[in-house]
């Protein structure tokens, strides 16, 4: 979104290095993410794009041997700072994973879990409303409104992924991270999710990691190309796909490697 022609920067990564033990996985990544836009991260397998994504909500903390250096500023606040509370951070930054991973609980419990632990609803009614709006925003409400108290694991793959999106947006995050959200889905479900992403960017900043260049071209406004742990090039999706500066980007886009 541009205010008075100036890009609003939501996330600013500065010189981010990531190590798995002694092996360095990301080298010196500096990247700006625009607010209320979809940013796609593309690149061949093992290039570090998922690792970078997981830096943004500090999911790498879970991995014992993983260490992150450098600054990631969200609203000008460094999330790698010691004073940053991970629980609060993750409340603001939702995440959708590669494989749909609903909790083995009811649909309702899946969506209400986040608001419950963050104390976002004072009454049952408020909670019902949150669940309904979240499911509506995830374009799932019409399909499941009669079976909210059935297990979430009983849905189809695409429905499960939309349930996970509903779960992520139930706490009204500012940023949604998506780690190859469509790689386990069929083309119809993929199309539904892509449509949804387009809708969600009105209220959220979205970063999506994808293997499919076509998908990146369809859903994103900005694209970053990763290769061997380095950010080779980033810029508007139009430019990256039509007129990249770097030869490697050109080769990857045109399918010469990867």
């Amino acid at each position, binding site marked *: 979104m541009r205010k008075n022609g100036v890009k609003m920067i939501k996330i600013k990564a500065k010189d981010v290095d990531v190590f798995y033990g002694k092996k360095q996985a990301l080298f010196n990544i500096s990247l700006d993410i625009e607010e209320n836009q979809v940013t796609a991260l593309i690149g061949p397998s093992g290039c570090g794009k998922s690792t970078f994504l997981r830096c943004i909500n500090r999911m790498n903390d879970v991995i014992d041997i993983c260490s992150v250096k450098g600054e990631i500023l969200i609203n000008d606040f460094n999330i790698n700072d010691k004073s940053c509370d991970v629980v609060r*951070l993750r*409340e603001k930054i939702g995440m959708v*994973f590669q494989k749909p991973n609903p909790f083995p609980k009811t649909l309702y419990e899946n969506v209400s*879990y986040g608001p419950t*632990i963050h104390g976002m609803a004072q009454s049952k009614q408020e909670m019902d409303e949150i669940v309904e709006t979240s499911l509506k925003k995830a374009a799932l409400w019409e399909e499941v409104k009669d079976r909210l108290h059935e297990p979430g694991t009983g849905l189809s793959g695409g429905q499960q992924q939309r349930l*996970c999106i509903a779960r992520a947006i139930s706490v009204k995050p500012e940023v949604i991270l998506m780690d190859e959200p469509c790689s386990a889905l069929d083309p119809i479900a993929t199309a539904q999710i892509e449509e949804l992403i387009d809708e969600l960017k009105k209220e959220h900043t979205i970063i999506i990691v994808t293997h499919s260049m076509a998908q990146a071209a369809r859903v994103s406004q900005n694209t970053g190309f990763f290769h061997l742990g380095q950010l080779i090039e980033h810029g508007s999706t139009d430019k990256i796909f039509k007129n990249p500066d770097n030869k490697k980007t050109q080769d990857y886009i045109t399918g010469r490697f990867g």
Partner: protein
Amino acid sequence: MNKNKEQLLNKRYKAEQRFRLYGLSAIFMALLFLTIFIFKIFSTGYSAFQKTWLIVPVTFDAELMMLDQNPSKEDLQDADYYDIALKSMADLDPNANEDQENELKRMVSYFFEKEIKNELLNDPNLIGKTKEVYLTASDDLDQVFKGNYPRDLPEDQRRVSDYQLKIFDQLVANGKVESKFNISFFTNADSREAELAGIASSFMGSIFSILVCLMIAFPVAVLAAIYLEEFAPKNRFTDFIEVNINNLAAVPSIVFGLLGLGVLLAIFHLPRSTPLVGGITLSLMTLPTIIIAARASLKAVPPSIREAALAMGASRMQTTMHHTVPLSMPGTLSGTIIGLAQALGETAPLILIGMVAFVNTIPGSPMDPAASLPVQIYIWAESAERGFVEKVSACIMVLLGFLIIMNLFAQIIRHKFEKKWS
């Protein structure tokens, strides 16, 4: 070339057939042993659930009982029943001499006086009248009636004399011997007399021990497993702990018995022979089993569930308590029940802490002396009397039944919790 290939293919098929045959024969062998084992136990044990009674006419003679006219309840309690009891047995053969009268007395349990007393206490109007009373037959006659007694042995090698057999056969011919369901086997505590011995004490002892064991082992083991699996950093120290837990699971149970003896009894002076000490000792043995089962089932919870919860902003504690632990519960619970079943069948450590003592009272709490089912089996198997042979098998049947019910319970829990969501 082609021919070679065909030969090779045939060879492969044959190898598969052979392998199937091996597997089938292994299963067949296992089933065969199991059948023999169960058949043997049932065929020797089933008769213990029947008890032989002699029906003897008893004359409640007020004079012999030293009772006045219109006796009160207390008078009846304090009355002398020995003489009428003796007389009614002696009356079975009017021509008996003194020695034979003694033998007649030994045809019933030493409890017979009390059985007669109870009869009168139930119905005080019997004074001065004659009634046929059911008296517990001695264990040897019980075996004779059940056909387990070698009657053709020379008399001096038998505990039943020819005279007793003659009278007994007369009673049988007159229909004065009856076999009924053996309630006292379940309601009596242990006794030196086989006809009176029951499993009530050891059964209650086992239940109390298992409860104590469960209450200590389950919370400790589950907390340890959760900490090790979800919170502990992976370093040398936790590796060391893990190796030692696995070692602990392989320690012979008698070692835990020595520990109970040396620490619980010698240092803490807990009451000897009690289910409390037994349960604590067994819980030491069960701990590693439950920890290993709980850790395995925590490990089996897909990491994607943890990630989902963490990414929603749940703390580690919330992730563990809301998602991981509930999902791991079926595995943990069935591991727990299997551990308890193991503890239930354990004998050696209980012998060391004194639960092998002869206990003829039924324990009312874990602080009372008691035996346990496997120890009871051990005690009876050591006894010389023929009457205990069937009791051993019967006790094994009860123990097996107990174990089967527990395992069934484990299965039910597994299915109930697992089916719900997948």
